């Protein structure tokens, strides 16, 4: 099939951006060099918690080629502000969360290993590296607080933050939930740890700062998922430069997974230093810096109780969680274990009573923030582990116990006891399809066959739900967000009829340059190669909130649909005038403006040309053929599905082999099924990585023990099976595309499915992620 034949909505079009990526012509931040640029190497704390007594840079400054050594004190003296947390969480008692000050460069104290307190800037990278070794810093080391579960009973890290508690947050009805548990026929209890993860986008973070002393313009090239938000924070809060004098460009970005949402100390320093020195300044993280300083993910300790009646119906769920927020509140760190977690604890079920209590605590570890799924994997892990455990304890079939508790198609819209209103779904359809694809019924035979080979075989389900399409602005702001979460889009039809599309979302692997072009090509009936999608540059795109929370298509794509509607409406007016027809007789379909019940029509390009060369043109209409729109979602979208994992465990070695994985997801309408499949695969790899391989570990002194690819186990090609993926469709009811978002589902559903399979094989629940051979072997050996 040629690409001309099928490019529209629903076609698996090959990606437009791939030609540059497969030929090495991508342009990532580290590929950008500026004439006269200097190189930055950061001075980083070797201690998890210490006072900075003195920084002596004399020897470093004497090295030939060193331009400057700047410290946190210099930055504070220049009047730069702290890095803000963008989401104010209200505590259960009605007070605001307690936010500790977070200077971009530390000046008095350091609170995690790797925290930057200064920077050496030199003509060559090698010189900067050598000079950084010569900076003498005196610290007074203090006792580190590392374990989140003990943080509330440790010494206070920040002055005025009592018990290291950022907030105690609750959601749901406590009394009703406790009464339901007290009256339940069965109560299942489970202690769970959601392991700390290190995002590890393959492109390390980087930044190049450029300042033009003539114009006063600043340009910051950086690895960001949301350049406009970056500009807003750097301008309004950190006060690096006024917004109209600061352009932020996020060029090709090599993966983000959440970790590139946040505004970090390094890019802040680079653009500030470029102005101070009057020279471009460049920094690229080494991987070891990525491990130490990229915001980590997850890190929850949870106790959960699920009550069931005599028939197996869920009557109450109570969840108590301690969430590690790290040393400072990162940009959205506060919202992840609260609004993105507690609100999802209903899962796919009609549990009438739910109560969740979260203690968000500071520790002397790098800040924790959104990582693929952000709160929703943690919620799914709690719900789906305890539901599976309940089935085992009651001797019920796990699929059937779920089925009698599922929200039914006729229940929508469904108000959960934890704030959300699910608009639509068909959870039974995904469950049935997944059970069929996994041959769930045939499992006992496979288990018996595996046993004959000396292997323990287990199977596990996970019926997840997520809230995506972040987010209705009014609701988000009511809940504490510092910005609205609408999205902007602009479509400029050029005089020759080809189209430039501007979106406030950012693509760093998701394929927007193709998907968004498909939407616009489909609407206008033009070729996909005649549509160019521009993103990632505050100098070219008016505004935007960026890409996270599986929002780009549902929110950003909907903005483009609105802009396209405006253009078609304007085109109809132009065409009506040119064809001397009444406006209400003109419509647009298949790429032409047509007069109803006649053979008169004008091509899309002809109308575009007329708009720019307005000779025969309506007198009361502005020339030009360009429209923009802001789209604010009415509700979250609710992708949901069923994942089924099957494992085999080698009893001698404890090695877990994932032998099959089935994912059936409902993302609503699909624009490009092949891209969706890729998103699911990638999410699954990260979720399976969490379950079997990955864990960020700090020792008791706050030293990161997993600071390289030698120590932190990333899933490799031979760790993973081929995936079986399929979709069911219930279109989203409240956006024009009927799309829900697909970026995070894989990472949300899979950890519980894999661990349910592992615990099934082992016959015990008390094994924590990741299920490494050592842990599994110990569990089998009873040691």
């Amino acid at each position, binding site marked *: 099939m040629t690409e001309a034949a099928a490019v529209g909505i629903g076609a698996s079009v090959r990606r437009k951006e*791939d030609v540059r990526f497969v030929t090495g012509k991508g342009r990532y931040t580290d590929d950008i060099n500026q004439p006269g640029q200097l190189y930055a190497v950061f001075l980083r704390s070797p201690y998890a918690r210490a006072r900075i007594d003195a920084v002596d840079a004399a020897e470093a400054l004497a090295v030939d080629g060193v331009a400057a050594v700047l410290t946190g004190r210099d930055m504070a003296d220049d009047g730069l502000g702290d890095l803000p947390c963008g989401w104010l969480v209200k505590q259960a008692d009605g007070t605001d969360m307690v936010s500790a000050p977070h200077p971009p460069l530390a000046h008095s104290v350091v609170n995690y290993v790797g925290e930057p307190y200064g920077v050496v800037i030199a003509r060559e990278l090698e010189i900067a590296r050598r000079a950084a070794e010569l900076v003498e810093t005196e610290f007074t080391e203090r006792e580190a607080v590392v374990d989140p579960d003990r943080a509330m009973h440790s010494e206070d890290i920040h002055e005025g933050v009592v018990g290291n508690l950022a907030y105690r947050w609750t959601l749901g009805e406590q009394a009703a939930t406790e009464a339901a548990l007290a009256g339940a026929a069965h109560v299942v209890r489970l202690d769970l740890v959601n392991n700390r993860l290190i995002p590890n986008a393959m492109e390390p973070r980087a930044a190049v700062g450029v300042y033009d002393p003539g114009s006063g313009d600043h340009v910051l090239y950086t690895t960001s998922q949301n350049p406009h938000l970056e500009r807003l924070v750097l301008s309004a809060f950190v006060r690096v430069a006024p917004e109209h004098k600061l352009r932020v460009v996020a060029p090709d970005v090599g993966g983000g997974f959440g970790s590139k949402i946040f505004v970090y100390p390094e890019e802040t320093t680079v653009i500030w230093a470029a102005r101070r020195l009057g020279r471009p300044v460049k920094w690229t993280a080494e991987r070891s810096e990525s491990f130490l300083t990229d915001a980590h993910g997850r890190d929850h300790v949870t106790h959960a109780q699920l009550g069931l009646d005599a028939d197996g119906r869920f009557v109450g769920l109570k969840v108590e969680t301690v969430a590690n927020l790290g040393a400072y509140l990162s940009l959205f760190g506060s919202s992840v274990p609260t609004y993105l977690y507690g609100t999802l604890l209903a899962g796919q079920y009609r549990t009438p009573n739910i109560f969740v209590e979260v203690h968000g605590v500071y520790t002397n570890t790098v800040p924790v923030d959104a990582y693929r799924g952000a709160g929703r994997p943690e919620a799914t892990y709690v719900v789906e582990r305890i539901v599976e455990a309940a089935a085992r304890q009651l001797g019920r079939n796990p699929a059937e116990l779920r089925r009698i508790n599922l929200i039914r198609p006729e229940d929508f819209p469904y108000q959960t006891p934890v704030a959300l209103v699910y608009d639509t779904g068909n959870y039974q359809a995904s469950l049935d399809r997944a059970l069929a694809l996994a041959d769930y019924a045939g499992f006992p035979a496979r288990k018996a066959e595996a046993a004959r080979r000396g292997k323990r075989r287990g199977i596990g389900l996970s019926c997840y739900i997520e809230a995506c399409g972040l987010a209705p602005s009014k609701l988000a702001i009511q809940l504490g967000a510092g910005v609205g979460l609408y999205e902007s889009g602009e479509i400029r039809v050029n005089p020759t009829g080809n189209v430039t599309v501007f979106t406030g979302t950012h693509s760093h692997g998701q394929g927007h340059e193709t998907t968004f072009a498909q939407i616009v090509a489909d609407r206008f009936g033009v070729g996909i190669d005649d549509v160019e999608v521009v993103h990632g540059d505050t100098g070219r795109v008016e505004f935007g909130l960026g890409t996270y929370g599986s929002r780009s298509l549902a929110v950003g794509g909907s903005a483009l649909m609105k802009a396209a509607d405006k253009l078609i409406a304007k085109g109809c007016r132009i065409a009506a005038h040119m064809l001397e027809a009444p406006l209400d007789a003109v419509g647009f379909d298949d790429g032409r403006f047509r007069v109803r019940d006649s053979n008169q029509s004008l091509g899309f390009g002809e109308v575009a040309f007329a708009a720019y060369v307005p000779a025969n043109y309506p007198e009361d209409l502005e020339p030009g053929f360009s429209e923009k729109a802001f789209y604010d979602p009415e509700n979250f979208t609710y992708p949901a599905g069923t994942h089924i994992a099957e494992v085999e465990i080698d009893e001698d070695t404890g090695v877990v082999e994932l032998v099959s994985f089935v994912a059936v997801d409902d993302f609503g309408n699909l624009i490009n099924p092949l891209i969706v499949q890729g998103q699911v695969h990638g999410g699954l790899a990260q979720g399976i990585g969490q379950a079997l391989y990955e864990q960020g570990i700090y020792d008791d002194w706050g030293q990161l023990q997993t600071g390289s690819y030698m120590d932190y186990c990333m899933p490799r090609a*031979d760790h993973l099976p081929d995936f079986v993926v399929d979709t069911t469709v219930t279109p989203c009811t409240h956006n024009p595309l009927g799309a829900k978002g697909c970026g995070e589902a894989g990472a949300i559903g899979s950890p519980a499915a894999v661990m349910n399979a592992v615990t099934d094989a082992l016959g015990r629940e008390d094994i924590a992620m990741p299920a490494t051979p050592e842990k599994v072997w110990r569990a089998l050996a009873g040691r």
Partner: protein
Amino acid sequence: MKLTLTVNGDAHTLDVAPNTLLVDVIREHLHLTGTHVGCDSSQCGACTVHLDGRAVKSCTVLAGQAAGARVVTIEGIGGPGRLHPMQEAFRDRHALQCGFCTPGMIMAAIDLVRHGDGLDRQSVRRGLEGNLCRCTGYHHIVDAVMDAAAATRDATAEVGHD
């Protein structure tokens, strides 16, 4: 130190410090930025290039070790408009997302197909375990490499040619 090497068919004579890595020559001196650096411990494979016809991690090779050698980078195997069969297969199969690991992955995959006999999906997975991808989950990468391997067997394309 002075050294001469051939990169993508062009001879270059450079004056570099003895501790200069091959990847720095490629990126910083020759401005061939398609070869990427994703780690500092030779684990990720984003910097994979061909050195005298074999895949190497160019962050682990000193520039001096490549003196007199023939180096081929992602830019040397095919460009827009004339893609190498492996590049074409990656595009056809959606075997890349952010694109950062892709050049190294393609260079490793070409070597694997050229030197691996009777590849199946599992041996492709084993053969690529030295290259990390955080986006794709590898499934589509395996699809692409199997396609390119089949194309080579059918002798309709020369995957083995640099």
